[in-house]
């Protein structure tokens, strides 16, 4: 057998043209009669100077070509529906199919966002009830659903903090404090709201360095952005003390509630003393990530921030549900979207919350925590190093592969890529930044023990591969639609738009 033959045998779809970019399957003059309105002969009133001269380059393929192309593309993804996906801080849990089907009932899909509320009471009642559920779950006093993702929720939260200080004439507060472990959106958001960011360090036990906090806090402090359980996967035990320090300094506390999975029904941000929280419904409330979105980032607030909540919100007068707008809430920071945010995502979260019910909420916390602690302990037993070995895991925990990187020259990235060969999506790598060569591992409550054990075994196997065949591991993956991709070239030889005349493969 020639070498070429050997390669041929082992590469899926030898006849590779099948998976080129869609434009390569396009031929001029092909149309989909079924999908275009009939041609009409009526005249147009648009002046020629405003008309396009040549048609845009869009693919010209048949409906079947499109279906086949995108179906095949989909198969190149790992996803919750196909793989264990323990991506820390991302809460990749099962997205119940009913949430999708029921949110996509024609009566909801056809509802125009500006239609009179009389014609959408069923839809609005879901949103209203979701507001109520989220209030109860977070212990906050009022909730607005409008932010379209976690980061926009953060923006809304920080803008409210600013509006609050401004409303009191307390305008000298120009700094926001973030732990060094904070998610990147936190500092970025603070800056978008016109603040300067002060970082404070995390202690070796994973808690915040309170002394450092005391040092940076002052009359210039607008607030602090925290998350608890923190992004290092531990519960900040001295949260009440921290809240007191911040409040005493006149600052407010922002809670990054992207990850509520481990505390649902166990402890509430409102009770910890937070003034504002955003939630990632696309994590804790199991709305799908969709390969990058959409999400939803509702915000909840304590008493003092109620007037500033972003609009629209849903009100209920005992008879009818209606939109609350700036007219009703003049101190609101205003609108964040053209309509009411990612309504369809909110519907899915509502359905999920109702399926869980009050008994289901704490169970999420319990079993996600159980899974995380089990994996943490088992990985430790297999010889892996934990970033915070003295602590309980929450919904997630951190393994550091610093030792492997140093002694075997096999990095966290290499472990990650090799895990893909074993049929597991990699954990979050290199975040939080403060732990070197880290894996942030979040199994979620919807994975069964066999799956966790399979992952743990794979980690152990890769460890022994790393010890005996480091080069093999460093060149992984081998079994995926692509080998390791050249990120440097991607940025240097920027190719972000396909141009005619090119051939992918």
């Amino acid at each position, binding site marked *: 057998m020639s070498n070429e033959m050997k390669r041929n045998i082992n590469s899926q779809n030898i006849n590779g043209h099948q998976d080129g970019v869609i*434009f390569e399957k396009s031929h001029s003059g092909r149309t989909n009669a079924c999908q*275009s*309105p009939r041609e009409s002969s009526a005249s147009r*009133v*648009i002046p020629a100077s*405003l008309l*396009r001269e040549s048609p845009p380059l*869009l693919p*010209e393929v048949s*409906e079947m070509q*499109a279906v086949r192309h995108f*179906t095949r593309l989909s*198969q190149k*993804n790992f996803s919750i529906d196909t793989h264990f996906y323990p991506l820390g801080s991302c809460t*990749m849990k099962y997205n119940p199919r009913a949430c*999708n089907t029921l*949110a*996509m009932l024609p009566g909801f899909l056809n509802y125009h966002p*500006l239609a*009179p509320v009389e014609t959408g009471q069923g839809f609005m009642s*879901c949103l209203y009830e979701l507001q109520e559920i989220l209030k109860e779950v977070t212990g906050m006093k009022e909730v607005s659903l409008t932010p379209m993702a976690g980061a*926009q929720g*953060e*923006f809304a939260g920080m803008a409210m903090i600013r509006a609050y200080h401004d409303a009191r004439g307390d305008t000298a507060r120009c700094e926001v404090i973030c732990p060094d472990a904070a998610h990147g*959106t936190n*500092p970025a958001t603070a800056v978008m709201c016109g603040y300067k*960011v002060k970082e404070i360090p995390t202690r070796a036990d994973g808690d915040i360095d309170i002394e450092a906090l005391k040092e940076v806090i002052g009359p210039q402090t607008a607030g602090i952005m925290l998350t608890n359980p923190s992004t290092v996967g531990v519960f900040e035990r001295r*949260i009440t003390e921290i809240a007191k320090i911040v409040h005493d300094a006149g600052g407010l506390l922002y809670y990054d509630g992207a990850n509520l999975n481990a505390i649902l029904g166990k402890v509430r941000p409102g009770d910890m003393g937070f003034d504002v929280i955003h939630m990632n419904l*696309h994590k804790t409330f199991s709305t799908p*990530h*969709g*390969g990058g979105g*959409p999400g939803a980032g509702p915000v909840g607030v304590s008493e003092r921030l109620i007037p500033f909540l972003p609009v629209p919100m849903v009100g209920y007068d005992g008879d009818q549900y209606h939109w609350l707008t700036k007219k009703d809430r003049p101190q609101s920071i205003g609108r964040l*979207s*053209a309509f*009411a945010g990612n309504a*369809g995502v909110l519907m899915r979260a509502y359905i999920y919350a*109702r*399926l*869980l019910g*009050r*008994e*289901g909420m*704490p169970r999420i916390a319990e079993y996600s925590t159980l*899974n995380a*602690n089990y994996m943490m302990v*088992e990985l430790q037993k297999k010889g892996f190093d934990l970033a915070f070995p003295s602590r309980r895991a929450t919904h997630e925990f951190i393994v550091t592969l610093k030792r492997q990187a140093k002694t075997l020259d096999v990095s966290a990235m290499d472990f990650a890529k090799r895990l893909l060969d074993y049929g597991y999506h*990699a954990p979050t790598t290199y*975040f939080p930044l403060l732990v070197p060569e880290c894996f942030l591992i979040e199994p979620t409550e919807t994975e*069964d023990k066999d799956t966790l054990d399979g992952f743990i075994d794979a980690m152990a196997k890769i460890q022994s591969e790393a010890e005996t065949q480091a080069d093999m591991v460093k060149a992984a993956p081998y079994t995926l639609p*692509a080998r390791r*991709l*050249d990120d440097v070239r*991607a940025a240097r*030889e920027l*190719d*972000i*738009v*396909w141009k005619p005349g090119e051939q*992918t493969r």
Partner: protein
Amino acid sequence: MPFIPHTETDVKQMLASIGVNDIEALFDEIPAELRIGLLDKVPAGLNEMEMSRLMHVRASGPQPLCFIGAGAYEHHIPAAIWEIVTRGEFYSAYTPYQAEASQGTLQLIYEYQTMMAHLTGMEASNASLYDGASGLAEAVLMAVRANRKSKSKRILMPASVNPTYRSVVQTIVENQGITLELVDYQLDAGCIDVASLPADPGDVAALVIPQPNFFGVLEDVNALTDWAHVHGLLVIAVVNPTSLALLTPPGEWGEQGADVVCGEGQPLGVPLAGGGPYFGFMCCNLKHVRQMPGRIVGRTVDADGKPGFALTLQAREQHIRRSKATSNICTNQGLVVAAATIYMTLLGAQGLNRVANSSHQNTQNLAAQLNAIDGVTMAFASPTFHEFVIKLDGVSAEDVLGALMADGVLGGFNLNADYPALGEAILVCATETKTAADIAAYRDALSRVMSRLKGGAA
């Protein structure tokens, strides 16, 4: 237990491995005084059958004939789109951080970027922003960063831009000290009078140009673009993507084309769904691409030299640059973008052109028929795309819309609150989904309502 796979045996084994007696022990680091009991106000759980019944009831009810546009448009959505988009592999995947395990999503976004670039006539596209309104806010922030010649944070914002977009932009940019200065429209034409723009606007970062504008009216985008460039302003185009199958792409406006192009992607295969999720698109030329917010996918090669796709230019983003990022955006509208990509693929340039044309013509048609009703006049004389404004004589827009609704017709968007100067005025839209019979139904309903209301009879 819904969605929890643990058997009792599993739990026992796992607890034994951890070395605790019960699950409760795992929460021992939480201060006891913070712990809570049952969440009483959360209703008890339902099973799927019960939930399904509830939601079917909530989704039922009359489905009126809808002539509202105003930023969200009813278009035919090919069945294939959402059947593919909701496949688990797209639906339940995360942001493509592990490129090798996400080639499907990544290639799709690369194809999306390509389509949007060609549609707008620009060189680059990102992978989406939240929606059209917040996308415009990001465009304003980007223009302020990108306009190297300008030190100002002044933006010219026409009143003919969707008023909701303007207020969203205000919310998002005001904390960075950016000011929006209103540019008025002509009361008779419904669009900006280029001649009325100041000969010397001073140091302004950018001019926003809507096409079509909120009234459905077409702006003189070529003259506006040239005026802006002459005075050192960047041009931010806010466009309807369907219209671009017909209209000059922003990349070709005036002498040099627009600098940043954004807009609402919803018309491209995304259901109305009570307002979301939609997506904001954003395009620019390569010289500005490093100022662009949001994710971008690039084509590269793998270790075997075969083409593949990966997120690129990540140094613009919050997870790398943190406080120095171009935006705080992280999660975007990926799945909706997948729908739009399949939509554009299924329609192609010709299909999209027919959608645009048919919407334009239905709108013309409806306008002509409404115009013939006593007490109804066209607010503006200018050419429009697929929306127009009617003015009502002697009756309130609110009453008319209410009466139409009772007749099963949603007659349009009431402009009263946002544009009091127009009097009693309604913004009306008819896309390709409206048949001749639908249009006649609206006309008949409106003419009944007008004669009833004007006649003073109940």
